[in-house]
């Protein structure tokens, strides 16, 4: 199996992923690419492997290299495409005590420096080697990698027993979220997507979003809806609930900060329609963003829901006057 961004066979991800390095460097050089490029095996047979590898290259200017600590800043996000559950963690951190050291200050110029990296999602995110589908993305400050999909197949098929309530993130403050259109809300996407706007108001950060997301059958509220504690408004007329995770990382401090919401939809859904989509708006502000970083710095906001990843929006918290 081939055709990932790094043009690797699935087997190459275990020990031979640099075989296309020359081509990758040539592409990076010719495109003057700055950022993170990742790839992963499309299919993993759980019983024959012990790791879930994600490999990639990080390209940055020499000038950036002096100020970016790749190890401390790189985050990896895996979204379960069935449950929409999000796992996020430091991609490269190991439990070591660093020796105090300072990088020199000099004019490093605009040249590029590139290094490859490997991430084992079993180690970093504690992902089980069980049948599942994930979409994986790497965040590194303002750099957001491409997303890749991994299908893990266990030799013994597992029966999916997802229930809506068990899939949803527990967000006690979900009721504080506003799911109506705001005057500055981004327009509803015409294709499957999440659009977000991040801004700073007098009362603090404001995150506005709109979404159009394929609805898994499991997320359509059935007859038992009245018994499911979804913590959403207008509960009786609820038709679907879409978990959306907003992940924030920082320029100086990686974080991450994660805000999880359950976006409700009240429009009728045809369970038999494979094209069924849920769409709507969300507005996050005030107490719901209590955990949003407030130290002066630049922050990068990205929303994830199932296989959909939003474009990253930056938000700068200025120093206090």
């Amino acid at each position: 199996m081939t055709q990932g961004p790094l043009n690797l066979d699935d087997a190459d991800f275990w020990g031979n992923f640099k075989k296309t390095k020359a081509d990758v460097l040539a592409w990076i050089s010719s495109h003057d690419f700055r950022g993170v490029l990742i790839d992963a095996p499309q299919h993993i047979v759980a019983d024959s492997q012990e790791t879930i590898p994600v490999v990639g290259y990080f390209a940055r200017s020499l000038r950036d290299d002096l100020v970016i600590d790749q190890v401390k800043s790189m985050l990896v996000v895996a979204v379960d495409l069935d449950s929409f559950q999000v796992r996020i963690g430091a991609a490269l951190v190991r439990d070591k005590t660093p020796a105090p050291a300072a990088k020199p200050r000099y004019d490093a110029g605009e040249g590029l420096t590139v290094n490859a990296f490997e991430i084992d999602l079993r180690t970093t995110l504690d992902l089980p080697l069980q049948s599942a589908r994930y979409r994986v993305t790497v965040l590194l400050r303002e750099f957001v990698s491409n997303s890749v999909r991994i299908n893990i197949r266990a030799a013994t098929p597992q029966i999916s027993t997802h229930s809506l309530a068990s899939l949803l993130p527990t967000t006690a403050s979900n009721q504080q979220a506003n799911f109506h259109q705001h005057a500055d809300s981004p327009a509803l996407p015409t294709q499957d997507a999440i659009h977000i706007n991040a801004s700073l108001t007098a009362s603090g950060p404001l995150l506005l979003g709109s979404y159009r997301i394929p609805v898994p059958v499991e997320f359509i509220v059935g007859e038992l809806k009245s018994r499911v504690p979804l913590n959403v408004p207008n509960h009786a007329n609820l038709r679907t609930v879409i978990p959306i995770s907003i992940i924030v990382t920082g320029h100086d401090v990686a974080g991450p900060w994660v805000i999880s919401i359950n976006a409700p939809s009240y429009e009728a859904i045809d369970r038999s329609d494979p094209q069924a989509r849920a769409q709507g708006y969300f507005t996050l502000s005030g107490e719901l963003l209590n955990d949003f970083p407030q130290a002066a710095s630049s922050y990068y906001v990205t929303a994830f829901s199932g296989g959909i990843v939003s474009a990253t929006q930056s938000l700068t918290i200025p120093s206090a006057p």
Partner: protein
Amino acid sequence: MVFDLRKNAKKYKSSDGDTLERIAQRERDAGNDITWEDIAKFNWGSADKAIVNEYLRDALGARLRDADKNFLISADDEPSGELLIPIRYKKANIETNKKYVFHVTKQPAPPQQFLECASIPGVTFEFDKSFVRPSVVDHLAALQAALKKHPAAKVLVFGHTDKVGSETYNKALSERRANSVYAFITNDVNTWEQLYTAENWGIKSVQEVLADLGGPYHPGLVDGKSGPKTEAAIKNFQKDNGLVVDGVAGPNTRKKLFMAYMSGKHDIKLTADDFLDPKHIGCGEFNPVIQTEEANEANRRVMFYLFDAKRPPSFPCKEGDVCPCKKQMTPPKPRYVDTFACSFYDSVAKDCGCEIKPAAVKQFAVAFISPQHKVTPVKQYINLKSADAGRDALGHVIEFTVGAKTDPSLRPARDGDTVFIEVLFDRSTGRNDPKPKLDIPGAQELDGGKLYTGSVKFAGGASNVTFTVDLGLAGSEKCEVKIGSTAKCEDAKVNFENWRKVFFQLSLPQSATAPSFTRMTNALGEIFVEYEKYKDHVFETDKGPSGSSISWFPGEWLDEPGKKLLNLGDYNKDFFHKQFVDDKTPLGVHIAACHTQYDANSAACERDFLNVEASATSTVVWSDGSTANGVDIFVGDGLFPLFLKDGTDARKSASWSEKGGTGKGTIGNSDILIRTGALLGWLTIRLPAAAKLVVDSAAGKHVLINATVMSAQGPFLGESDGKSKWLQLVVIKQTANVVNDVSAHELGHTFNQVVSTVAPGMDSKKHTRKYTANGHQGPHCAFGMSEDNFAKGAGKKATPYEGNFAGKPECTCIMYGENGSGSTCTGTFCDLCKPFLKSEGLTTLHEKKS
């Protein structure tokens, strides 16, 4: 004194208040000059008061006593014999010149009636039952010994009850007890079968017998409940005794069981001929040894009396009838034993040591038999195997064995005696799994698990009882175990303090010297970890993994000329670790010391530099001091001339191309310089001649340099191996305090600090200064940092706190993210970290890894 012929003696007729003295006085008044001694000797051959009293009781049926407890005769006595009043012999008109012949018969002295006694104490019987429990054996042995001593004796069995129930019921019960014992001695299983049915002995008696037989017949717990173990035991017995194997103790099985019980180890060789007639008597409730209306074990007893076969007492008793008993009770005093109502029994028992001083029934107290500890509190290691008595595989579960205190003034333990237990836990850490507890059936948990109470009973004739206490797996927790023969639990106590013991072996590079680890062991002692070195090892110079010659690198690279320096990293640490794995010793933590710590196994070690511009104005200083056109690139501190992982040249390739042109070429290694010493981390590339021609060809002309080098990642000061959690790397080239703090820090990580996972029952949110990343790798502790600054650093306030927590002198905990030179670490774990560190069980650190 000589008396007239016996046939001429007068027969006495009972009269109220008579004594031998009064009878004699009347005779003297009437001219018959005799004394009471004359009457006694004439009738019974002895004027001994005790013997006279026995004859008054047995022959004349006397039951009343005077103040000196001598029997008085009354008119309503029911004599079983007769009293003759002798006539003083007188012969008148005897002449001096004649010869007379007098024939005189001497009355022989009587044998002693009471010879010996033995008892079967009450604990041999259950309430309202006559089944003889296994503890009877010692008492029967005493009986057999007594008979051996008195071959002319005959035995009489007296049964007694306590006062619960009616007099009539208890009379019958006491008779059954006496009968049951007699049947036991004479192997009379039919009588037992009758009693089994009449008293509904039930499965418990079967279990007691099976348990006493033991071996394959042991039924497990003797609880009166049928179950698989009991059924299996019965089947085993049935199989071995030719019975139908159905697991049910029916009449046939019971008979064989009872016979095995009676004729087995408890058998004594007595027959019916060894007993008086009647062979057994029941006194009911009338002669208790302890005056109480309650159920009382001491009162439920059976007595054996040995009497001379020629002079047994004459019993007023009648089976199933309390009337004769009642008659003996009037008047109630005086008695030799105040609690005895029956005058007859009281006088019979007056020589019986078993009955006369029953309350020499001593008190009972308990003591720990095992484990015994000379020093308390006991420093209990809960995470490793213990050779101490009663410990489980990890030492935190202790089985206590308790027995009666050995003191001459105290009695031994008996079946049914209770040991009361009180266990106090301080529960100082909050860890709740395994839960510290008193682990016995029926234990009561109080005060949120800080107090447990319970009791166990002596049973089956055993001299010991056992109970179990689980101390839990949290270090520092304290426990007090108290026992007693009363609910106050005042007899004995022992205190425990939970510790974890962790071994470490220290490996040092050859020629390196280890600092004192006192600072570290003190810090660990505060979290109740005893850190003990059990082995030293030396890494020999130039030894490294196969195919690599660079684990030891030239000291020149770090301005230490002439030395060989050992680097340990992800690429070679397993090799060095395996050198000192010792499968024979329980393994704790390995501290592998090294001169430097760089990793060289990750994909990121290969660094590519693309399109780095050089021109005629960019100059570099070469190693010989000359200058040239080129570029200096800072790669990082891990850039050495040889790649640490495999010793190959770190310069992999370099090339140049003309910017905006077609010129290009390679850059040979002679134009690539990897810096060392003070310039460690720098890569200098000078332009080869062809490239220099290009940049010199026109003003502003540039060439673009591409280069690939191999660079290790680091440096680090220490590492807690994330995979196996028992290997720690530490850089020895630091001050003693730093080495101590880094080692303790990495051990803290091995103990899951800072709260990466928590022990059951612990609340990770209580560590209010935990941070992750923020300038350091992994979860760490910012204890000492103000709440405001912590909040700022965590990004929750508008004012920044410099973005991270690195280099904050107020952070003093060992688990702060940096412990290098200049650190203000105080060498101790902070109060936020300590509870979590104390709560870790550390039970797997001793598993052998290979």
